[in-house]
């Protein structure tokens, strides 16, 4: 009965407040970069810049997937564990044996080759995502619970798969993807930025992207508009699975070793980055641009503080504070908008 009457003010072609949280994160990022540059000039050397980018590229890839999930109002806690499992599978396929059988036998090119190794890692990720997505979208188990289960189960799977042993030492062909350079640019950085661009285009310009925002904004209205909500929800977990799988391969390549403990705690850093970038945990708001900024912010902070010889423990405290502050800022902007 009580309708809020809104008399429109001057015409505004773009609602900038919609991007406020993303732009806010960008502002903070630039400010921090300037401060670090002033204190420690080495911070802005091109070597260090690419170093930062390389450090965040795996987190970044995972965060791209996580943005899709969080846009629908969901969450995926399993990515770190799934990454470890996928990395081991990839390594085992590459080395031509399963698990322990091939561990330690360095460099023998008796395996199935690079392409099958990458394909296997991605397949493991996609399959894991499909499994969890089905439980969430069809069986209606809350995403937090399903992926909490995945967090434990996939880690167990990783330990079981390789009987608790890492699979190490690969050929250059394998290591190239995690360690190589194209000119001055590290390969994982290219992969990260490539997928970020692709995701940006998908979210902004495609029908699927539009559906995603609609489902996250109001699933009931989306359903009544003829959207297949459960299929869309399912799809985002497949997407995070894909990125977890790919990252599993990349991390094993970069470290020259696939470890059972790879990716422990990554989910929290990744979620932090997405949230700092202005994507709402309630769904329907945010985007890839903000996510890239958010992840860079975490990377820059950690890199800069390390350069300044600040203990990594302080870094964790700082990141924690920034998460809360970023969300508080976001709420502040929204409250003023009302």
């Amino acid at each position, binding site marked *: 009965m*009580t309708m809020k*009457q*809104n008399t429109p003010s001057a015409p505004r072609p773009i*609602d900038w407040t919609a991007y406020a949280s993303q732009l806010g994160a960008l502002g903070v990022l630039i400010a921090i970069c300037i401060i670090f540059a002033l204190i420690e000039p080495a911070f802005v050397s091109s070597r260090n810049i690419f170093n930062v980018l390389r450090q965040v590229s795996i987190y970044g890839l995972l965060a791209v997937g996580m943005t899709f999930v969080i846009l629908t109002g969901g969450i995926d806690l399993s990515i770190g564990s799934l990454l470890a499992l996928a990395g081991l599978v990839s390594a085992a396929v590459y080395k031509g044996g399963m698990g322990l059988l091939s561990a330690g036998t360095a460099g023998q090119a008796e395996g199935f080759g690079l392409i099958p190794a990458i394909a296997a890692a991605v397949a493991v990720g996609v399959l894991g995502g499909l499994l969890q997505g089905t439980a969430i979208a069809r069986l209606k188990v809350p995403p937090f619970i399903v992926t909490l289960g995945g967090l434990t189960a996939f880690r167990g799977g990783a330990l079981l798969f390789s009987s608790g042993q890492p699979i190490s030492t690969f050929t250059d062909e394998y290591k190239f993807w995690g360690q190589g350079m194209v000119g001055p640019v590290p390969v994982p950085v290219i992969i990260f930025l490539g997928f970020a661009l692709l995701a940006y285009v998908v979210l902004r310009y495609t*029908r699927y992207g539009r559906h995603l925002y609609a489902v996250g904004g109001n699933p009931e209205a989306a359903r*009544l508009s*003829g959207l297949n909500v459960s299929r869309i929800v399912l799809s985002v977990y497949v997407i995070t699975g894909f990125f977890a799988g790919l990252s599993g391969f990349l991390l094993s390549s970069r470290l020259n070793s696939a470890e059972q403990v790879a990716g422990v705690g990554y989910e929290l850093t990744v979620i932090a980055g997405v949230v700092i970038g202005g994507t709402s945990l309630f769904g329907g708001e945010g985007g890839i641009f903000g996510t890239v900024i958010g992840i860079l912010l975490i990377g820059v902070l950690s890199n800069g503080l390390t350069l300044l010889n600040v203990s990594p423990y302080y870094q964790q405290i700082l990141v924690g504070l920034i998460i809360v502050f970023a969300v508080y800022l976001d709420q502040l902007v929204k409250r003023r908008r009302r």
Partner: protein
Amino acid sequence: MDRQSALLWMKDVSKAFPGVQALQSVSLYAAAGEVLGLIGQNGAGKSTLMKILSGVYTIDSGELYFNGSPLVIHSPHQAQELGISIIYQELNLMPNLSVMENIFIGREPGGAVFVDRRQLEQQTRAILERMHMHLRPTALLRSLSVAEQQMVEIAKAISRDVRVLIMDEPTSALSEAEVETLFEIIRELKRSGVAVIFISHRLEEVLHICDRVSVLRDGQNAGDVQVADTSREELIRRMVGRSLEQFFHRTEHLDGSVSSTEVVLEVQKIHRRGNTLNPDAVVLDDVSFSLRRGEILGLAGLVGAGRTELVRTIFGADRRRSGRILLNGREVNIHSPVDAIRLGIGLVPEDRKAQGLILGLAVRENMTLAHLDTLSRAEFVQLATERRLVTEYIERFEIRTPSMEQKVVNLSGGNQQKVVIAKWLMLTPQILIMDEPTRGIDVGAKSEIYELMHQLATHGISIIMISSEFPELLAMCDRIVCLAEGRVTGELLHREATLETLMHFCTLRRQVVSVSEGAIAL
């Protein structure tokens, strides 16, 4: 019994909300040991009145007296302290606590830390026995039926020494036998000197249990009569009044030629069970009707009649239990909104904000949401085409928004509704279902929406319109199907329909339908 000595007396109470005068100089009194019936159409002001008594709203003007002394109610808590309790349709109980814990929640006997369970049980048992309620104090609330849970609410009120007990549609979820049990409890309350205010759409029950009836209409008093001196017909007359507001009137109605036009939709024998209150409740019972091309068909009914459930079932938003739906003479299977939309059916839902719109998205994105399949080429939304289309609809419907990029949350109710309607018209539907299309919309926007509906019908789109405002149905519809308690109780052509006939059919109860009122069209 005169007003001054009544237990509760509301004198000339007014309350306005932006754009709506909800109550205008309403007076009401209730005496100890009396059962007062409070009736009125949807939106007559009953719930506003209740919310004033429970301390949710404050009054703009007027006076309240309790036991002869002036009264100001600040909060629900204070209302309860005074002995004014309200039992809402949606019960406010904790499903995982026991009966006794629910009754004494927040006032448990015992020390500062531990609850004295024995005393709790004894006190509960005393109340239950006094009221002849056959409940176990330790039973978990969620194991009880709706009727039993309602008893717990009443017991809770009694435990707080209730003086005035207000019951909002207490029988709507009860079976015949349970209603009788409830009436026994009400009589018991009456004997112990409680003033009971019984709000109901069921006139037979009001006439049966109440001593006196107060009628509200459009936020004003429309009569206060002793049950002994009144009749069902008089109550209906008082509820609807004589004043037909000036609504937009359609110039062309299909009346008379209706039989010659082609049937677009036929709904046959739809059944549905279960609602949020009661999984066994009969929601829709053997509902059949047909819709013709270019017709505006009204669905009339009071709250709980099953109108929204019926259209949601047709649209595939909820599962139906049985029944057939024929579209252009061919049976169709509609399992989800996707199916309905593919068949050319659109739904403007009852709750615009919760079901019709993605509030955080722009006008443009909301408008084309159901239309993206056609607007996309190789998955990419054709932005230029989209903008052109949206501009066209914004102009055609005169949607007042600074730009198509404005978030719909910032639009007024009428403009929001136009966005929802535009979303469906982009799909060129053959049937448009509109559930309360003018709810919460100012007068100007209302008439624009009426005009729009009329145009659509003229262009051959068939419309099913639900409205709680009978005058609106009378003005807009070629034909009106009346529902009561999930059943079709009557069907009226435009020229036959009056406020009285509509109200008559919408308040028909089941037995009455079969026994004394044989003259039903279906």
